[in-house]
Structures are given as structure tokens and as C-alpha cells.
């Protein structure tokens, strides 16, 4: 059932078993996990079914460091940011969960194996088809050989072929709207904004949620258990705004809420050009998504785990695509002579008839950094709430590793003998602003850690010190890995649903 919060009389007090704040990928996934369950679920969404400028403006904020578009980088209506999602899916790798002594603050309190069954379920939720099992994501060379033909046969182990699997992309709000509407135990309140999560006097349990709408009415929800699923920036913001009992913000006794913000830097344009002796040297399934049974997959290049451990580097993923014949029209005038010469060097080895230039673009793994953070700005939104202030500057170590990984890519293609690489992204003492793009992936601001001094939520995603408050979404990621977060968000949420069901059976909900 959907209810327009603007129609709820001011002063109304609503009760529920589970309140879910936010109806994006995490919130909708969690609500669906409880359909036909005995517990009453309230799904609370700030927006309606469509983008509304006044509601979207609640996302406006300030940024320091990188000039970051806080209002454009996410969407505030039913379905959340899946409404502009690109559909890229890939699980994090085992190494992404590990403590790596060369990556500060790395290490999850759970492993990839803990998430594997949930990744499998998440593939169904994101409607990714069944062409790849979770194991296939790790043995992609074997999967590619069986289904698509041999991947690039590098002579060294530095780079390996892996796959993104593509969602349609699924708009969670559209896809699951009817299910939510007809679920007898789910009430979805639209146009309803949580202003504060109010705990008891000891700040050990959430007692109530204060809500308001842009129409001016205010009401309360009293849940037995609350899950914050508002996105990587808004989760931190709402905890910081929930300060009537704990002045520093709810769950912020160790000054960690909002810290460790991470984004995947997407360098604008190409990080490298790759001259190949023959366009066919790179199979077409690297260029664009390829349909396999009921799935769409595209190959990418990633550093192998062995390479990352050996070289002590951050990860990345590289997409490659054909651009033009080497030295041909379309190449910048200044590039043509050297491209023609490079083509000669490729012919020297393979006696091919020409060379093709491929572009290489990337997304890179961020370093968790406490100074990159979400705080509250002095300016307030239309509901009187402090706006977000995002402080984000990618670390120079991220730049260094990316440049060195590009060099390693050149070495791998050279050793193979079929291609040569031009590095467009090279080491610099500072990270120039024009080399910073982003993926709209907001991670880390309520990071997961066993120790309350190291993280905001525990391994079950429960806020340390508060019995009935949980967080869903990429804000719990301690590290971000080098791939898009949505599949992991959904997997973690399904794991959280199982956890809540288990504690419910123990009589707490």
C-alpha cells in the first residue's frame, strides 16, 4: 500500500515493526525481503513516483575540495538513484574484503564468502540473468573460453580479463512498485521526510522518527527496529542531524559518522591509448555488452590479485574500445606521425596490415581517508534541516597507483607482443582537477568495523551502541574496491534481512 505522507494529519503517531528510511536499491530490496512476513514494514521515501524539483532540491549542499554536484549525483524519489543507474554489476573480489597493509583502514569484518550466497540472490533481484554464477565472476577466463572465446592471452599475470554483467538497467522503483503496493504488510509512505531519528534518553534504542513533508504537516513513526537506507551521503547526514540526545549525532560517539567518504575516480577521457596490430586482436566482447543467454556481459581488464599483492597497489577496472585506425584522420594532427611509427613497430613483429587505436577508460579504487567526509553545513533546506557539506579530495597515492598501473598495462601489452600502449595518465605531484571524474558512488560514511572506535556499524550493520538501528547501503563499505557498488549494496541488504529475521525470531521484533 502506498500512502502520501502529505495526507497524514499533523500530530499523528504511527507504529510499525520495521521502519526503512529510503526507497532506493537497499530500501526496496529490504522491504521486498519481508513481503508476506508477519512483521509490519513501513518504507519511508522523501519523494513521490517521479522526479520533483522541490524535493530534489533537498539534496543541494556544499562541497570542498572537488566541486561535487550533491544534487545531481543522486535522485530523491521512489527507486532512488537506481532511476539513473548505469546497470554495471560485479561483485567485489576476495582481496577487496581483506586487510591490506598497503591500504590504510582496509579490511572488512566479513569476507567475500560471507556474501557469496547473497550475491547470488542479488543477481536475481537486479534481474541479471543466470549466465554467470558467482564462481564465474572469479574464473572469468574459463567462463569466457566456454562461452565467448579466448580472452586476451597476456604473457604475464599482471592483468586479467573479468566481466561486468549488465542490468537492463533495472529501475527498482518501477520494477517493484506493484509488489510493494500489493504487499499486505508493507506501507510505503511517499513525500515523507525523516527529520530526526530520536533515541531514548540513554541513546541505546531508537524510540521514534520525526517526519515532515514539504506541505508542512509533521507526524511520528514509532518503530521496533529502524533501518537507515538513504544513500551514502544522506545516511551520514541524518545521523548527524539526529542530535537532540547525542549532540554530536546518533552513533557518533567516536567522531566517525560521515568520515571516510569514498568515490570511484573515473578519469575523464582515456587513461591510455592501445595500438593493436589488428582490430580483431581484441574480441568484440571487450568493446560492448554481449548477450549470453539471458544476460549481457562485457569484458574489462583488471589487475590480478597476485599483481596487487606483489606491487602493493590499489585496484582498478579498465574498459577498452576501438577508436580509429592508427595515424588516420580522427587522430589529433600532432599524434599522427608517432601513431604511424607505432604501427610500424607492430607490423615489425606480426606482419599485420595495419594498426587500430583503442581507448582505455577506467574507474579506480579509492583509499579510505578520515578527512574525506560528510558534515553539516550552516545553510538549511526547505525543511529547516542543515544541508550536507562534502569534503572530498582523492589522495595523491590513488593518482600514483593509477599511473603506475597504466605503466604496467603497457608492459603487459608489450610482453604479449600484439599491442603497444600510450600512457595518457602519468605521475604528477598533485592530482589536477581536470583529471578527476566520478561515478556517483558514495561509500564509507558509516563504515563497518567490529571495533566501535574503527567504524559506525558492526558486522551485522547495526549501529554500535544502539540496539535497534541498522544501516543499509554503500555507506557501510569500509573499502570501495574498484567496481560499481550496486550489486554489493543489494547483497549486503539481503544479508541484513536474514539477520533481522533471525533476531526477530528471538523475540526482539
Amino acid at each position, binding site marked *: 500500500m502506498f500512502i502520501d505522507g502529505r495526507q497524514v494529519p499533523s500530530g499523528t503517531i504511527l507504529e510499525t515493526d520495521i521502519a526503512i528510511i529510503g526507497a532506493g536499491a537497499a530500501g526496496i530490496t529490504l522491504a521486498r525481503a519481508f513481503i508476506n512476513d508477519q512483521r509490519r514494514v513501513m518504507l519511508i521515501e522523501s519523494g513521490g513516483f517521479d522526479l520533483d524539483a522541490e524535493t530534489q532540491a533537498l539534496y543541494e549542499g556544499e562541497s570542498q575540495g572537488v566541486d561535487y554536484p550533491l544534487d545531481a549525483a543522486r535522485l530523491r524519489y521512489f527507486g532512488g538513484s537506481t532511476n539513473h543507474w548505469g546497470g554495471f554489476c560485479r561483485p567485489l573480489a576476495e582481496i577487496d574484503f581483506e586487510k591490506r597493509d598497503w591500504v590504510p583502514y582496509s579490511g572488512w569484518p566479513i569476507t567475500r564468502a560471507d556474501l557469496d550466497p547473497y550475491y547470488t540472490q542479488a543477481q536475481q533481484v537486479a534481474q541479471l540473468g543466470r549466465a554467470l554464477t558467482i564462481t564465474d565472476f572469479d574464473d572469468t577466463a574459463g567462463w569466457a573460453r566456454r562461452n565467448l572465446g579466448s580472452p586476451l592471452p597476456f*604473457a604475464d599475470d599482471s592483468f586479467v580479463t573479468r566481466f561486468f554483467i549488465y542490468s537492463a538497467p533495472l529501475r527498482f522503483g518501477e520494477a517493484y512498485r506493484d509488489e510493494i503496493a500489493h504487499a499486505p504488510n508493507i506501507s510505503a509512505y511517499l513525500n515523507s521526510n525523516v527529520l530526526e531519528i530520536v533515541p531514548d534518553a540513554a541513546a541505546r534504542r531508537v524510540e521514534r522518527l520525526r517526519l515532515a513533508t514539504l506541505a508542512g504537516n509533521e507526524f511520528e513513526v514509532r518503530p521496533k527496529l529502524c533501518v537507515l537506507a538513504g544513500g551514502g551521503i544522506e545516511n551520514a547526514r541524518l545521523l548527524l542531524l539526529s542530535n537532540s540526545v547525542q549532540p554530536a549525532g546518533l552513533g557518533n560517539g567516536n567522531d566517525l559518522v560521515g568520515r571516510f567518504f569514498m568515490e570511484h575516480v573515473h578519469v575523464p577521457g582515456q587513461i591510455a591509448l592501445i595500438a593493436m596490430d589488428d582490430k580483431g586482436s581484441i574480441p568484440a566482447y571487450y568493446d560492448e555488452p554481449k548477450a549470453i543467454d539471458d544476460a549481457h556481459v562485457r569484458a574489462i581488464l583488471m589487475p590480478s590479485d597476485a599483481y596487487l599483492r606483489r606491487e602493493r597497489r590499489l585496484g582498478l577496472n579498465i574498459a577498452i574500445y576501438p577508436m580509429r585506425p592508427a*595515424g588516420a584522420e580522427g587522430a589529433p594532427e600532432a599524434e599522427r*606521425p*608517432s601513431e*604511424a611509427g607505432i604501427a*610500424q613497430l607492430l607490423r615489425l*613483429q606480426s606482419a599485420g596490415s595495419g594498426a587500430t587505436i583503442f581507448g582505455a577508460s577506467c574507474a579506480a579504487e579509492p583509499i579510505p581517508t578520515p578527512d574525506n567526509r560528510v558534515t553539516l553545513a550552516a545553510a538549511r533546506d526547505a525543511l529547516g534541516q542543515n544541508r550536507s557539506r562534502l569534503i572530498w579530495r582523492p589522495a595523491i597515492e590513488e593518482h600514483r597507483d593509477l599511473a603506475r598501473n597504466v605503466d604496467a598495462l603497457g608492459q603487459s601489452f608489450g610482453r604479449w607482443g600484439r599491442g603497444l*600502449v600510450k600512457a595518457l595518465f602519468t605521475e604528477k605531484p598533485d592530482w589536477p582537477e581536470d583529471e578527476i571524474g566520478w561515478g556517483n558512488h558514495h561509500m564509507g560514511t558509516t563504515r563497518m568495523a567490529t571495533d566501535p572506535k574503527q567504524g559506525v556499524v558492526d558486522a551485522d550493520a547495526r549501529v554500535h551502541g544502539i540496539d535497534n538501528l541498522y544501516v543499509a547501503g554503500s555507506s557501510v563499505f569500509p573499502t570501495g574496491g574498484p567496481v560499481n557498488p550496486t550489486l554489493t549494496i543489494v547483497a549486503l541488504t539481503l544479508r541484513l534481512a536474514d539477520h533481522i529475521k533471525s533476531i526477530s525470531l528471538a523475540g526482539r521484533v
Partner: protein
Amino acid sequence: MNQSRRDVLAGIGACGAVTFAGAGAATFLLAPGFDRAEVSNLLALLADRQAAAKIGAAWLGRHSAYAGSWDALPKLVAERLVQSGWRGGNIDALRAQVADIVRADFAANAIEDVDGWRISRFQAQLCGLACLDASRPRLA
């Protein structure tokens, strides 16, 4: 033949503007164990030598020891081939041998940066040869 360093550098400066006289012009590349026909074959691997020579000019611009002599780089290239096990053969065998050397360079991180392109040291040296060959005065 006794050109000065200035002659060589002047020739390299004009590298790329020279009209090639064909593979047979590369008669300077002589070293023990490397005969005249193989010299021709080596440069013949570079079908568009003028394009390769431009890469070579950029590389020679940063390697003055080879830019100042007609003989040093040819000797180095020939020795590298022989040291890699080259015992003679046709152009296809030479192509395979060069490919082996290039892969070995990349494996050993013997990589040169020319205009951002990461090429092997031997590839750079071959391009340097093409440049020298293009810039060398043709004596009657």
C-alpha cells in the same frame, strides 16, 4: 667515410624528410656475425621506415651517445641480435627473433617512453637505426 658528430646530428635533424633509397641503402649496419643481407632484412621489417624514423629521431634526441655516431647504434643492435641467439635465417625468422627480443625487453622492464608510447628498448633502437639510415648521406 669519416663524418663528424655534427654531420650525424644534422642528418638526424632532417630525419623523416629524407627520401629513402630502399633497404639496400642500409649498408652501414655491419657487425661480427651479421651479414649484409640481414642488414637489409632488418630494416625491411619496417615497411614505412619514414614513420619509424620519426620515432627514432625522438629517441635519439634523448640518447646523445648514439646520436653522435654513425656506428655505435648499428653495432649495438647487431650485437643484441647475435647475443639473443641469432644465427641467420630468412626475414620471417628474423621477424620472430626480433619479436622475442622485444618481449624480453618488456619482461625486463627495458621500456622507453617516446611521446608517451611505451616501447621496448630494442624497438626504440631499431627506430633509431631507421632514422640514422634516413639521415646518412648517400655516397656515390
